[in-house]
Every structure is written in C-alpha cells, then in structure tokens.
C-alpha cells in the first residue's frame, strides 16, 4: 500500500529540506523570490483544495488571500498586534468568510458558482478600495507592517523571512498530503466524480463542500499573512480578479489534485518569469500560450495526479 505515493512524498520531503539551505547560495533578490514562491505555492495549494479536489469552480480565491493579508495589516498597523498573533485571526477569518459565502451558493452548478465567486472578488476589491470602515486605507492600502518575532527573535532578514515562509509551506504540504489520505479528501473526490453516487453512499455534499471551501479559504488566509509580512504593505491591487484567474490557471495547468503539479504551476507562473527578467512583460503572454498548449495537448495538466493509488 501507498507504494505509488510514498516515494513521491519522500522525494518531496527531501527536496523541501534541501530548499531550506537555499539562502546560503542565493543573493537577497533570489531569496525573496523563493520566499514569494512559497507564499504563492500555499495559495495555489489552497485553491487546489476547492478547485482540484472538490471540483468547485472558485474564481475569486484571491479574496481569501486578501482577507488574510488585510487581517494582519489592520491588526498590526492599526491596533499594534504582534504579527504572529494576527495569524490565527487571518486563518479563521478567511475560513469563516469562505464558509458563510459558500453556504448559500454551494449547490449552484459549476458555471453559476464561478460567476458568483467572480462577483465576490469584485465586491471585495471595491470594499478595500473604498476604505472599508476607515480601516483598509483605500487604494493605497496599508503600509508599514512590522515583522514577526518568535521567542524574542525578530524575523527580519530576507533569510529569516524565507525560512518562516518555507516552514509554513512545509506544514501546508503535510496537511495536503494528509488530505489525500483521509476520509474528507476522499469524500471530496467522490463528490467531484459523481455527486449522486457519493450522496447515496452517505456523503453529505453540502457540508463537505462548505468544509472544503472553508479549508481552502483558511489556507489562503495563512498565505495572506505571510504575503503582508513579506512585502510589508497591503493594497487592493494584489487581490484583484486577474490574481484569482492566475491561481485558477495554475491549478488547471499544473494538474488538479496533484501537489507536485500545483507546485510546478506556481513555479512556472512566479519563478520562471524572474529568470527571464528581460522578458517579464511577456509573462502573461507566455503563460497564456502555455495554458492553451496544455489544455489542448495535456488536459489533465503538466503533472497529473497519480492514479489508482491505494
């Protein structure tokens, strides 16, 4: 048992541990790119919970990323909370919004659900731009976030932030792997493949899907905190609709329900453009062509989920 998934997981763990040594070899610009990769990898994985695993067409996922980032920025800058204390609020707050938003619309068919999530994204960005409750700072957002401190140590340097992000990425990867191996993860797959059959086996479609939404949103909220800390300013432009589309595309191009696929998609979107910095303005052009090519030639994604694992 697990003979197909175990080696991949083991290789992944070794790779992850190896990456922890990256700051020794990279210059500070690249360290921050690697940190950003970890943050977006978490958001993409959280999108995958909703889209890839539960099969729910969520094209407003940047909202939960944004809620996490704003929760941290508002509480830290506005109320002087330490960064780490804002982290649970970011996670739980995003998860709650996800659950409350999903509850009435979760039974919508795929395309209708997609439009509803786009609507949520539009409302969120508008609310942030209009300085919601005098807290979110309007179009300029909230600048000047502090840094997290752990046991009296300031996580301040590029390297320290990198490790902070990568350790949390490691935790999220572990959670995602566990999701593959527990009843919740399986129930999501049953629902995605045949909701009627799943229901007659006792799967509560509504509850399970709302849970998936909340879990995806919560993980995105976690990434939001990391993002806010990394760039030390939070503004609406980071959470607009095109960001949601990008996250959606990463999962589809990388491979739905596939951890390595989603990581690969994230790297293609956020790391490769940095390597070819002089072509950076062609980022969406290149990724757009990749999207078309993958959909035509390899609709299951670049690195599809391993099949028939026990």
């Amino acid at each position, binding site marked *: 048992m697990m003979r197909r998934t175990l080696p991949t997981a083991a290789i992944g763990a070794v790779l992850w541990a190896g990456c922890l040594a990256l700051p020794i070899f990279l210059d500070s610009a690249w360290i921050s790119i690697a940190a950003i990769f970890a943050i977006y990898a978490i958001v993409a994985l959280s999108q995958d919970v909703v889209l890839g695993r539960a099969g729910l067409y969520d094209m407003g996922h940047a909202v939960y990323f944004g809620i996490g980032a704003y929760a941290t920025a508002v509480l830290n800058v506005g109320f002087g909370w330490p960064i780490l204390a804002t982290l649970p609020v970011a996670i739980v707050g995003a998860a709650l919004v996800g659950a409350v938003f999903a509850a009435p619309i979760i039974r919508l068919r795929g395309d209708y659900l997609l439009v509803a999530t786009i609507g949520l994204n539009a409302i969120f960005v508008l609310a942030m731009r209009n300085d919601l409750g005098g807290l979110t700072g309007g179009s300029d957002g909230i600048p000047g976030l502090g840094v997290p401190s752990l046991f009296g140590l300031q996580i301040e340097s590029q390297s320290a932030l990198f490790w902070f992000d990568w350790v949390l990425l490691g935790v999220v990867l572990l959670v995602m792997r566990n999701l593959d191996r*527990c009843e919740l993860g399986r129930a999501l797959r049953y629902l995605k*493949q045949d909701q*009627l*059959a799943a229901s007659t*086996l006792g799967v509560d*479609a509504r509850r399970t899907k709302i849970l998936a939404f909340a879990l995806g949103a919560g993980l995105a909220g976690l990434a939001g905190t990391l993002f806010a800390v990394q760039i030390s300013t939070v503004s609406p432009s980071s959470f607009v609709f095109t960001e949601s589309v990008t996250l959606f595309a990463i999962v589809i191009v990388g491979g739905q329900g596939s951890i390595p696929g989603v990581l690969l998609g994230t790297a293609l979107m956020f790391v490769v453009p940095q390597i070819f910095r002089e072509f950076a303005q062609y980022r969406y052009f290149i990724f757009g062509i990749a999207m078309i090519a993958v959909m035509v030639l390899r609709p299951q994604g670049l690195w599809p989920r391993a099949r028939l694992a*026990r």
Partner: protein
Amino acid sequence: MSALLELAGIGISFGGLRAVDDLSFTVGEGQIVALIGPNGAGKTTVFNMITGVYRPNGGKILWYNHDITGFAPHRIARLGIMRTFQTIRLFSDMSVFENVRAGCHLRTRQHWWQGLAGLPSQRREEAEIADRTSDILKRLDLETVADERAIALPYGVQRRVELARTLIANPKLVILDEPAAGLNDRESAKLNETIFGIRDSGITVLLVEHDMNVVMNVTDHIVVINFGRKIAEGNAATIRNNQQVIEAYLGRDDDETEEAA
C-alpha cells in the same frame, strides 16, 4: 415479520406525466422483494424516491414506521439503505479497491481535523478500512482486480464492484436496480447465489429486474407495476398466473391496453 420499509400511496409527476401513482407496498425484514414491470413502468423512479433522489409529491415512505419521505440521499444512506444503479455509477478515476472503500464512508469515525493532522487514531482507522475493503473484495471474488481501474472492467465485474461498495457499508436494506443487466448466463446464474448470500447475512433485498430467472427463483414477494400503478402483488406462482401481468408484458389487442391500469 415486521415491516422494514413501507410505501404508502406514493406518487410523483414530471411535467404532466404521472410517472408513479398511489403506489403502496411493504418490504418485510429479511425478505427478498422484486419490483417488476415493463420498460418505462416507473420502477427506477420508485427507487429514486425511496433513496431521496426524487421527492414524492404524494404519499409517504416509512422506515421502521418512521416517516422518511423527502429525506436527502445521504440521510437515507445513514439509515442503512444502500443502492446500486441501473446505469452503473462507479467512480471513473478510481481503482476497484478505491471504489469499494468508498462504501465505508459512513462507518468512519474520524473527524476532518484528525485526518488533516494525520493523528495515530486516524491512521489506525485507515488501516482498518483497508482491511475491511480487502475482506469484502475477497468475499465477492474481486481481489485479483483490486488495483484495476474499475470502469475498464467487464460489465459483470463492475456490477459486483458496485454491489461490494454497498455491502461494505453493512446496510439493513440494499436496493438493486437491474443487477442482472449485462451479465452473461454464467454470471446471471451466480447472481442468484449472491442475492441469497446477501439475505443470509441479514440484509433485506429490494430489486428491480427483468431477468425472470432471477425474479422467479429468488424472491419472496413480487410487486408488479405498469404505467406507474401497481397491478399485482404476490409470490412467484401467483404473479406468473396473473392475467393482468401477462397482458402487461405480452400486450393485448390494440387500444384496450390502457385499460390495464
């Protein structure tokens, strides 16, 4: 013998069509009951009402004398009512093992957060689920194909996989929608044994079937419907000699047919 499931005058309309009308019958605990009738008589619609896929717009469905009319499918499953489908509905992306394991859903005790954390108690339960799945695969002679993709297998094997998926849940009642459809003679003969085996393990069986070899040989009680209404009810011998049943199946001359209802 106490009534496990009772349909009391249930009916449903689709648009202007009364697909099932004022249908009543009882399934006793430990029985094997067949629901038969010509194509389009409404048999699968009855199953869909019992299992919560359709909500009847008339009548009541009672389970141990409790009203369960209009319950959602997952609540029906929770009561211990499991079904198979006329058009087999296996999870297309999964192996036989994974498909059968899906039937364990209601028997798992783990909470979602225990699963995400991978706690030892959850890992233990996972191992139990795997063992239970292997056991039932063995019982239904499916262990050699356990790792095959389920929907790539022959029809008869797929039917067994679907059956295994319901039995692993340890239901009180299984509802089989045309279990013999698409089976070859050998498989169909074996089906009778399988159905008796299910009953002997304490599970009540309600089935829709066209294969009269199966219907006449395994059932305790037969309910015949045509155009959504019950036209006869009784044991195999009674039904075989019932004039209305014979007419429903073989037809009558010309336009007298609608009188059959």
